[in-house]
């Protein structure tokens, strides 16, 4: 590299030999960033000839000792060529789906920077998105297909490199063999949320549906959505509430068990801006999280007691006569009459009037009309006719006493006077009253986190929360919201996923998977999974109780295949590992996230090593399975097909539009206000209303647990029962008195970015945060190694004293790989037990004990 000749004068002004003299700065209107600078003059244009690329390979000690001559010895050539910039979408499960400029120089991704969403409020990037160069070229990338050396144990790490042909053939052969000996359901596919792209995931779906395989569905954060959605109806979205750009309209924001600043860094600024605009922030969390430190009011709550708190608030609303009956009667099942005989709503047909059937003019389909009955001034009326129904009433239908749903809810609410709630939640009564003031000072955005729902009683938290929101009419309006937000594009052409018709093999939730394998039965069928394909997931790391997976699932399998870009914990236990390309190594799009956008992600570099995109892996596998005819399309053709639908048309979504604009919004309203009555913003329950009382409670998903009548009764209305383990009166806590909670740390997204150097410099090793009181009583020194343990397993990491931690609890960060722990892992302690209705991973419902640990201690 040539050294530019810098005159003494210029050298004084511009102290880098590599640079031209400094630009004289002056005010000018034109600026693209927050910093005003004039257009560059010819003289000030940076001479790139003197640039050194700073490789470690060059020069060594001798050159640098030559003082000023060091630049001459640099090996890299002048970089007059500008960087190529591609649009990439970062897509782990952080909900961000940030648009990045991916800068490529000499065929390498050298940096990323923030690219804009069409709505600049959504433009964002974070430190994980910024460190992609280190992540993409991380030594932990899997370079070639690998097969476990025959005769060695799973997890022993003995691999032989094989070709793609060998790998795909071996996989296909096993699939064929299992299908013929055990049946279609013996082949199972296990996805995670790690690879957020549409085409790749749809290719897997297409293949597994063709094979009629068992789909092992995710059970992450499901109680939260289910507790809401069973009230609102199976809407197009799972996690539905008002869009984040609506937060500014709130008078109060209440965050329930969500550490927004750490788990969703991209969402914080919406809250911040609202606060700058006068909105008040209240945070309810057992731990003093970062967002709690920002709040106007932080309410420490006993973990697992959000539900009583909601009930207590409703109790106060009732006392203060603050119920919005107009809203309730119009939007909810409040006035519907519930028969005490069967718990169902009273319908006109119950009174002997036949249902009428008409034809829908638009579709020609039959429309049955058998309205629910309500009382209006004591007179039975059809619900859609009554102008002002009675919310609180009873009616004797034959011998069956019917009470309005609201009346039944009120009975439940009556069980929660403030004194009872205060004792359960360990929140002072005046604070609960203050919270009630806040919740009545609307519009209120209730930002619901995923903490409180990760217990056995998680479903009832959001069920109760929705009731609370409904009671004050705090739904369906700007600023008035209850829930967590994450949207998935509903206009995807679902025919793509099922080219030969729907999959007749039932899916099974991941949390029930282990149970089903133990019992060998699922939904009255024999269940003997012999082949498991894991993609975009790291269950041995992030799911509950990895020991159960290793000791009970793996031994049953003839083959486990893991497709991942990185050698994760689960990949280490595989029989065959397939290297998947990273996000900027192929073209795809994403269609989910908090910005309600379909995002286009361009290929910036060639796939590294022998990695392949998920699409190509599926193509290869399909070929080996004799299903190549179904995968003849190119990636572009697939994307076109996926993006072509009627709903898409209505939204202006098409492949060409996407390529051109890089980002297409998939919402009919802006901002999206949930339950406002607009298109795709309606209750889609059977009654078309918010069913806070459930006629026919049904579990979220199938499992091997039985639904008993008493459980059905329990689920009709919000019902209090404590967490299973994380409760001072539980059996588990008699032996393990501490509550083991997790946080979503900012230094990873679940277990992704686990080995990135720069992030590990900031966050070097597993730790567990402990209140000094608990630590000192156990002789645990700050920064010493400790072992957390219970009957299921143990994990070792550093103890970190933190007064933010509620005494009696511990907080650990999820996602450390096994090899990063001194012993065990945090996930070993987690339970695979689940609530039969929620069918959710109860990450937080864990009891444990902690003790000092020294090297060489009993494992």
């Amino acid at each position: 590299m040539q050294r530019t000749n810098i005159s003494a004068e210029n050298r004084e002004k511009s102290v880098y030999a590599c640079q031209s003299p400094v630009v004289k700065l002056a005010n000018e209107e034109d600026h693209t960033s927050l910093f005003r600078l004039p257009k560059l003059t010819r003289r000030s244009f940076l001479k790139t000839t003197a640039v050194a690329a700073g490789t470690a390979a060059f020069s060594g000690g001798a050159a640098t000792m030559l003082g000023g001559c060091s630049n001459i010895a640099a090996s890299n050539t002048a970089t007059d060529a500008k960087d190529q910039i591609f649009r990439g979408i970062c897509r782990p499960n952080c909900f961000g789906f940030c648009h990045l400029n991916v800068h490529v120089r000499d065929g390498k991704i050298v940096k990323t920077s923030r690219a804009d969403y069409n709505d600049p409020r959504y433009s964002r990037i974070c430190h994980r998105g910024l460190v992609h160069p280190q992540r993409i070229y991380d030594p932990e990338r899997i370079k070639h297909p690998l097969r476990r050396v025959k005769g060695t144990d799973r997890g022993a790490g003995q691999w032989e490199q094989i070709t793609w042909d060998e790998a795909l053939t071996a996989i296909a052969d096993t699939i064929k063999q299992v299908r013929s000996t055990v049946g279609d359901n013996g082949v199972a596919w296990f996805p995670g949320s790690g690879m957020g792209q549409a085409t790749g995931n749809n290719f897997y779906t297409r293949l597994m549906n063709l094979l009629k395989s068992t789909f092992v569905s995710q059970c992450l954060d499901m109680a939260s959505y289910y507790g809401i959605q069973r009230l609102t109806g199976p809407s197009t979205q799972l996690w539905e509430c008002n869009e984040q750009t609506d937060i500014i309209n709130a008078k109060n924001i209440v965050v329930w068990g969500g550490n927004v600043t750490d788990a969703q860094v991209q969402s914080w600024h919406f809250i911040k801006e609202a606060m700058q605009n006068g909105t008040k922030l209240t945070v309810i969390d057992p731990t003093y999280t970062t967002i709690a430190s920002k709040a106007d009011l932080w309410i420490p709550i006993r973990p697992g007691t959000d539900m009583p708190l909601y009930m207590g608030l409703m109790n106060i609303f009732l006392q203060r006569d603050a119920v919005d009956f107009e809203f309730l009667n119009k939007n909810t099942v409040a006035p519907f009459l519930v028969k005490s005989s069967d718990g169902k709503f009273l319908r006109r047909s119950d009174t002997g009037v036949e249902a009428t059937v008409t034809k829908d003019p638009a579709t020609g389909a039959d429309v049955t009309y058998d309205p629910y009955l309500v009382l209006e001034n004591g007179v039975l009326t059809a619900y859609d006719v009554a102008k002002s129904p009675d919310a609180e009433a009873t009616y004797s239908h034959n011998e069956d006493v019917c009470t309005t749903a609201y009346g039944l809810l009120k009975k439940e609410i009556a069980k929660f006077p403030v004194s009872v709630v205060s004792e359960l939640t360990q929140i002072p009564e005046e604070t609960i009253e203050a919270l009630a003031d806040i919740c009545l000072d609307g519009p209120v955005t209730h930002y619901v986190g995923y903490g409180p729902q990760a217990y056995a009683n998680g479903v009832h938290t959001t069920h109760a929360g929705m009731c609370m929101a409904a009671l004050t009419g705090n739904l369906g309006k700007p600023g008035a919201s209850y829930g967590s937000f994450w949207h998935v594009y509903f206009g995807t052409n679902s025919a793509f996923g099922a080219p030969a018709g729907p999959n007749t093999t039932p899916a099974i939730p991941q949390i029930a998977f282990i149970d089903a394998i133990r019992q060998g039965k699922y939904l009255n069928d024999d269940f003997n999974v012999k082949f498991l394909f894991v993609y975009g997931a790291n269950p041995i790391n992030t799911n509950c109780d990895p020991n159960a997976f290793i000791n009970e699932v793996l031994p049953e399998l003839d083959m486990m295949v893991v497709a991942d870009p990185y050698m994760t914990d689960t990949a280490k236990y595989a029989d065959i590992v397939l290297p998947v390309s990273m996000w900027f190594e192929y073209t795809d799009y994403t269609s989910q996230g908090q910005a309600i956008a379909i995002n286009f992600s361009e290929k910036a570099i060639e796939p590294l090593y022998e990695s392949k995109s998920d699409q190509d892996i599926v193509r290869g596998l399909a070929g080996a399975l004799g299903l190549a005819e179904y995968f003849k399309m190119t990636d572009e053709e697939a994307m076109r097909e996926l993006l072509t639908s009627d709903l898409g048309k209505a939204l202006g979504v098409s492949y060409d539009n996407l390529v051109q604009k890089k980002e297409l919004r998939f919402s009919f309203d802006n901002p999206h206000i949930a339950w406002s009555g607009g298109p795709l913003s309606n209750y889609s329950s059977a009654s078309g209303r918010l069913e806070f009382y459930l006629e026919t409670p049904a579990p979220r998903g199938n499992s091997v647990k039985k639904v008993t009548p008493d459980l059905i009764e329990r689920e009709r209305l919000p019902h209090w029962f404590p967490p299973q383990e994380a409760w001072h009166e539980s059996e588990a806590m008699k032996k393990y008195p501490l509550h083991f909670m997790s946080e979503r740390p900012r230094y990873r997204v679940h277990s992704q970015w686990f080995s990135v150097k720069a992030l590990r410099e900031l966050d070097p090793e597993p730790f567990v945060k402990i209140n000094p009181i608990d630590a000192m009583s156990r002789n645990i020194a700050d920064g010493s190694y400790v072992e957390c343990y219970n009957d299921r397993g143990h994990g070792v990491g550093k103890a970190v004293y933190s007064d933010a931690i509620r005494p009696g609890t511990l907080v650990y960060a999820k996602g450390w790989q096994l090899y990063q722990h001194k012993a065990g892992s945090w996930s070993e302690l987690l339970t695979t037990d689940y609530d039969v209705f929620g069918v959710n991973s109860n990450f937080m419902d864990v009891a444990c004990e902690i003790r000092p640990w020294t090297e060489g201690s009993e494992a």
Partner: protein
Amino acid sequence: MAEQRLGMVIDMKGCIACSSCAMACKIENNLPDENWWNRVLTVGGENRDTPSGTYPNLSMESMTLACQHCENPACTRVCPVGATVKREEDGVVLQDYDKCIGCRMCIAACPYTGVRSFNWEEPKYCLPFATGDADVPSHQKHVVEKCTFCNHRLAKGEAPACIEPCPARVRFFGDLNDPSSEVSKLISSRKYQQLLVERGTNPSIYYLV
């Protein structure tokens, strides 16, 4: 009196310690392993991301710390060979790697703990190629380095790399001598604090509180 006085405003009320700014700097400037020019600090407990006080009466904030580009720098005074100088036109304090003799007097003179770093060995990189901007000078063994306000970007009319990526949107950069600049407006309209004011360095970084 300098023509421009480039400076930074960081809104501490909004900072969430995510380290995006620190990471942007690290990648942009191709910092060697273990080397950080910009760091996140927890204003609270003894350990990072922990508060001061006793549960539940707690308090915690975060801030970021890099070279303060002081108006009255202690470092430029003491460098025996003038390897660190404050540029007249805009007030940026720069470091000339080629001149630095590695005496580390500047590190001893600078009151801002840790903002200056010395390459104690041949810079190691976890990648075999440089990341970030092509115009960044290469790092040398046994010289001192620090935040340069991304001098290579200033030359192109761009703000430092740490400003835009902040997801909390709490970082601002501009000319403090220009009353109409965003940074000037912020410090005239909001309460702020500066670090170690009593040392007389007159830093150009303002923290809104």
